[in-house]
């Protein structure tokens, strides 16, 4: 007999786990080189598949945390100014300290992503009447303003191509020794799982959470720090992955509800699975050439987002 927190989730979890294995196998087998060659498998294929799983799970979890903290279904790092702020941080640190180690650059991106996300939450708090559609709109516009600042700086300094590599997620350059930072995203995903109950309660709103004895401020600060770091790590290693954190949690919530302790493993697995699927698609469509997963995700994600927006019955919104 499963513990009550897992009831109803186990069958879904089993199906997901199987799907994930199949997709991971496909991801390992697709490619130009011969899988038989040990170097290809260990130096390129395995790191790539691992990077996809880590980034997919991380971004989906970042999305679900953002949605609880902002109490809005349509918020995620790419609709809250988080991703664009992280990119701006990467750009600035690359300009000011081109030789800095990647860890330092990532810290700068994290700090910048944090600042952008906190600004977004401040703007939200200043808007007493926030209906569920204005919130993502404000986030997207904020991201647009930050993004145009980045474009302008990059344009002045001949960094437009660099900017492009952070703006569109691409796993084709992932090799052994060049993706390990993503394990940090995995660790943070586990930390989020440890905080799951607190974040769920924080998602009930400030007053309700304080009534239930939660230190609301600290929980939100911790949650936002996790989101900013996962986003910054992902952008620093493979580039932005739009809408993954928006679509996956919404689909999982329809199946498993809003208790983060129950839904987080499903969100992480589905995020990894969807990203693997998009990556394999991008590799197969124009074989032997590749279409970056950020682009595939942009098409799939925005199409699914439109479906979510235009559904007649907005029960879940």
């Amino acid at each position, binding site marked *: 007999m499963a513990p009550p927190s897992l009831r109803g989730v186990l069958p879904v979890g089993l199906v997901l786990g199987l799907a994930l294995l199949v997709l991971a196998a496909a991801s390992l087998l697709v490619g130009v080189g011969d899988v038989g060659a040990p170097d290809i498998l260990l130096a390129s294929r395995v790191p790539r598949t691992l990077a996809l799983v880590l980034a997919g799970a991380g971004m989906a979890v970042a999305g679900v945390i953002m949605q609880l903290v902002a109490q809005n279904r*349509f918020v995620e790092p790419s609709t809250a100014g988080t991703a664009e702020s992280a990119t701006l941080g990467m750009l600035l640190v690359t300009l000011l300290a081109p030789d800095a180690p990647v860890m330092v650059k990532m810290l700068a991106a994290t700090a910048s992503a944090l600042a952008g996300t906190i600004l977004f939450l401040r*703007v939200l708090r*200043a*808007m*007493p*009447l*926030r*209906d569920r*559609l*204005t919130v*993502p*709109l*404000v986030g*997207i*516009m*904020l991201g*647009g*303003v930050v993004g*145009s*600042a980045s*474009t*302008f700086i990059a*344009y*002045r300094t001949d960094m437009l191509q660099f900017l492009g590599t952070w703006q*569109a997620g691409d796993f084709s350059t992932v090799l052994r020794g060049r993706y390990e930072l993503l394990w940090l995203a995995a660790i943070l995903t586990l930390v989020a799982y440890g905080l799951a109950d607190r974040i769920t309660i924080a998602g009930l709103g400030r007053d309700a959470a304080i009534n239930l004895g939660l230190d609301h401020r600290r929980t939100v600060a911790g949650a936002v720090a996790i989101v900013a770091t996962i986003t910054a790590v992902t952008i620093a290693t493979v580039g932005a992955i*739009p*809408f993954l954190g928006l679509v996956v949690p919404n689909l999982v919530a329809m199946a498993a509800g809003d208790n983060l302790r129950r839904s987080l493993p499903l969100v992480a697995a589905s995020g990894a699975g969807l990203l693997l699927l998009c990556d394999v698609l991008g590799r197969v469509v*124009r074989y032997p*050439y590749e*279409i*970056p997963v950020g*682009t*595939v995700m*942009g*098409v799939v994600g*925005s*199409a699914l*987002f*439109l479906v979510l*927006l*235009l559904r007649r019955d907005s029960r879940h919104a």
Partner: protein
Amino acid sequence: MRSPLTQGRVSPASVLALLALATLGLAIAFMTVGANGRWGFVLPFRGTKLASLLLVAGAVATATVLFQTVSGNRILTPAIMGFDELYRLIQTGIVVAAGTGGLGDPRLRFLAETGAMVLFALLLYRWLLNRNGGNLHRLLLVGVVCGVLFRSLSQFLQRLLDPNQFVVLQSSYFANFNAVRPDLLMLAALGLVAAGVAAWRLSGRLDVLLLGRDEAVALGIDYRKTLTLVLVLVAILVSVSTALVGPVTFLGLLVANLAYRMMPSYRHAVVLPAAALVAAITLVGGQLVLERVFSLNAALSIVIEFLGGLTLLVLLARRAQ
């Protein structure tokens, strides 16, 4: 909210006259500053640039005011509704389908692009306005997400091009006032002036539409017919100006809202020209400052994007109060 400028008894005509004078002054400065006496070269070169700046300013401003009147709010613009990305997608699609020189004559290509965009825009906005007439924020969000979808599709198609084609294509992605072809300028001017005049002649009916759909119908306006006509004009204005210089997303939002604040009247007969003049001042002044002071040629669209995005945020925040 009334700005100091509209308090007291300022007539709309005097505000228009001031704006016109400022535009004229900037235009003269644009033509003459730093010319160093090489008039034979400078006048035609800068004249083409000035003409395209003025045309685009008038077109974008008119289109935005029209769109805001029929949608009944002052935050929407055709560009925010994904129009610019639609233009880029169509550009990309044409190159993928027919190659960079595919349609041969640039004038033919210009007409084909414009036609395709008018058709697309009409279908999309008509459907959206009909379907979501009630929920403005949903409409806006759908438009923004449509823009993201179009952009991702463009990126997807770009991957199917060879690098040389891509370089040619990329130049059409940013607004550029420096590489306008004179023959296209004439063609565009014809279309834009015709659409502008048609819009201005609709002024009276547009004033009635400001009252809202039901009131307009009660006062004898054929609502569906007028809406379609206005959307066709918007599509023509935006498509032609975009096909001429490329996308300038937030310019319309900035200038339309400035014009509303400045004019002591709601009548379209004066608001339309006011918005066009404010846009002309913004574009010509901006280009003048960027070129002569910062020697940046192509950055105008990025700066306008930044300012316009801020404008939108302020408008959203103020509405929510």
